[in-house]
């Protein structure tokens, strides 16, 4: 109840704070820009301001201002009771966060990268995801687990894994992955307000990227729905699904494909679980061709699930086999040339789309 009341007076109470506005980079009336970092920071700030039950915990989130500066300024603003620097003990502090959520608080637990979430995965799955079900609704877990996911640049095998497929397969969890600043703001706010455990997969390389942002998105009440994908670019010839950093690659691939007369429809998944299969299917029924793109390992990946969802609903509409672009099936190598081969590149997406459209001469050669 308190949460709803405070949301109604949100506009007034936040009038003097206006964090989103002073995070802007340029003040021209034409188009405002915002980095993903500032989008996340402003979303955290606004949600903490709106609901005193929301608190942040993780390594270096307080005094250090955040390992990637996402929580900059929050300790100063909200104090050490609501912004907690933890020791380097993921299993322990994740368990503590989940316990706090059992009691009714709304923790935001930061993993410095999701690779370290593996130390805590028992609590995420067994203590958080399954609790509402096991207790027949008594113990809900309004917690958000957030942090960078996937490959960065040159950080090697233990620091580059994408966890979308693993968490995406688990009932009881909601799994989101933003691309743009609008996504970052809207989805993080939705995640914090959501009464269920949410895995929020960010991307380190996107933190510094700027995106245009509208006044509506800057409003503190802005929120995006969980479970809805966004059509970033409409097209007629082939559907390309992607999430997080790969959305940017897919959009660039679409530009290249357009020069060859192929009109690609780019779907930004935004939500890995629930997966927006209606939007994906509607798109495939329009274009008849599908390319799935992800950074993570191919086997049992997000693309594999999307392919099956489309085969189940829209098999008759497919004019070509579904193409899958994913990370290479190897631990992430360090050497720059090998790393480049291990992660999808724009040309891989272009090539796969052309194959789906039967425009690739290589296919004729192998046939």
């Amino acid at each position, binding site marked *: 109840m308190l949460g709803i009341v405070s949301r109604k007076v949100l506009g007034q109470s936040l009038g003097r704070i206006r964090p989103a506005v002073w995070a802007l980079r340029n003040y021209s009336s034409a188009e405002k820009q915002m980095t993903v970092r500032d989008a996340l920071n402003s979303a955290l700030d606004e949600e903490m301001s709106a609901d005193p039950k929301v608190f942040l915990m993780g390594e270096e989130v307080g005094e250090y201002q955040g390992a990637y500066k996402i929580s900059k300024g929050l300790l100063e603003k909200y104090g050490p009771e609501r912004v907690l620097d933890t020791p380097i003990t993921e299993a322990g502090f994740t368990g503590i966060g989940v316990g706090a959520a059992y009691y009714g608080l709304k923790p935001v637990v930061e993993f410095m990268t999701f690779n370290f979430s593996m*130390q805590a995965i028992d609590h995420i799955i067994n203590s958080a995801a399954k609790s509402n079900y096991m207790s027949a609704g008594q113990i809900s877990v309004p917690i958000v687990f957030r942090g960078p996911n996937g490959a960065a640049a040159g*950080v090697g095998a233990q620091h580059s894994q994408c966890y979308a497929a693993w968490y995406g397969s688990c009932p009881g969890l909601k799994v989101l992955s933003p691309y743009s600043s609008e996504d970052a703001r809207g989805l993080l706010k939705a995640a914090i307000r959501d009464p269920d455990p949410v895995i929020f997969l960010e991307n380190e390389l996107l933190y510094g990227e700027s995106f245009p942002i509208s006044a509506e998105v800057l409003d503190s009440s802005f929120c995006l729905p969980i479970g809805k994908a966004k059509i970033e670019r409409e097209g007629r010839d082939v559907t390309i699904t992607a999430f997080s950093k790969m959305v940017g690659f897919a959009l660039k691939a679409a530009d290249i494909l357009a020069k060859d007369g192929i009109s690609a429809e780019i779907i930004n998944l935004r939500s890995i679980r629930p997966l927006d299969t209606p939007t994906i299917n509607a798109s495939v029924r329009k274009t008849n061709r599908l390319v799935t793109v992800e950074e993570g390992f191919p086997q049992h990946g997000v693309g594999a699930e999307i392919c099956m969802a489309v085969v189940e609903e829209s098999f008759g509409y497919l004019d070509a086999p579904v193409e899958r*672009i*994913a990370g290479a099936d*190897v631990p992430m*190598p*360090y050497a720059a040339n*090998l790393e480049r081969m291990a992660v999808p590149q724009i040309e891989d997406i272009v090539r796969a789309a052309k194959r789906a459209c039967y425009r690739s001469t290589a296919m004729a050669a192998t046939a």
Partner: protein
Amino acid sequence: MALSTSLRSNLIKPLTALTALSSTHHLRSPFSSSADDTTVLTIETSVPFIGHRCEPPSRNVETTPKEVLGFFRDMALMRRMEIASDSLYKSKLIRGFCHLYDGQEAVAVGMEAAITRRDCIITAYRDHCIYLGRGGTLFECFSELMGRQSGCSKGKGGSMHFYKKENGFYGGHGIVGAQIPLGCGLAFAQKYSKDETVTFAMYGDGAANQGQLFEALNMAALWDLPAILVCENNHYGMGTAEWRAAKSPAYYKRGDYVPGLKVDGMDVLAVKQACRFAKEHALKNGPIILEMDTYRYHGHSMSDPGSTYRTRDEISGVRQERDAIERVRKLILSHELSTEAELKSIEKEIRGQVDDAIARAKESPMPDPSELFTNVYVKGFGIEVAGADRKEVRGVLP
């Protein structure tokens, strides 16, 4: 200061030993000291050891001029390598993460002096100097840092993943704390195989709070494993000071029922003494914890300036008062084991070696693209694997 008064108080013994064993002009011909492996020097450590549930070893450490000069050379080489890596990172020849060890050299060097290559060492990601101490070459280090095929992990590991199994170095690990149970596992295997060797599992004050440490330590104690847990306490876990992360920062006591020893990690002779003591203990009585009081001059990694959570005065203070290399330099000069000029020439030689290794590493090739698919398995059954576009880049796992 402490060093010279203790030297003066102990000087009588070593001096008479020296004059008894060697020529009258020994003290004035420093070049002969560099090969002197027979003269026994007894040097007092900077501070006494503090024991937890054990009788600490003596403060008087036996060494030889050759060993002491070797300490100087080894530590100076490690120092120079890390400083050179800083520049390479800034010129973007090293990518990703780079965690430098400068300041902590005495731990790596002192440990090696007490053990054999059949003993095992495992550590976290601040591993360049440990690798060097275990017999790795500068060329292999720099090649790996720059992602070349001549690197110790063929360019596939990077800064955090150096290994040298044939010399008992098991890496090189990126996940904080994970190396501790792994180290206890090595000790388990050593005992199982009746090798009469031990494992040194190294970790930082940040990792000291990890639950897996206590789980593994409990089993090591239950099963009397020859595991020595070495906490390199540089007082900061990334940006968090020890008092903000640990209710009890007396890491040598954290083993509770497991004995521990607190050691001045900036005093290479103290480190040597402690490791020798620990090895003897572990072979007879099971696990022991060594807390090395040390300091890193760089930030946590090259992405961390290291000055937002500690003062520049603190950093320069440690450099002036406790630097491990300076301590050994003073020891060498006050015992006349060598001259200022010779030490400077050693340092110049080291600079040349480092520059040469970097130049060769810069010229060496990147890994062949086929290496993308090698070493996934030992035995791959010939199964097919794919690159990002499975219809474009394919491989077979041998």
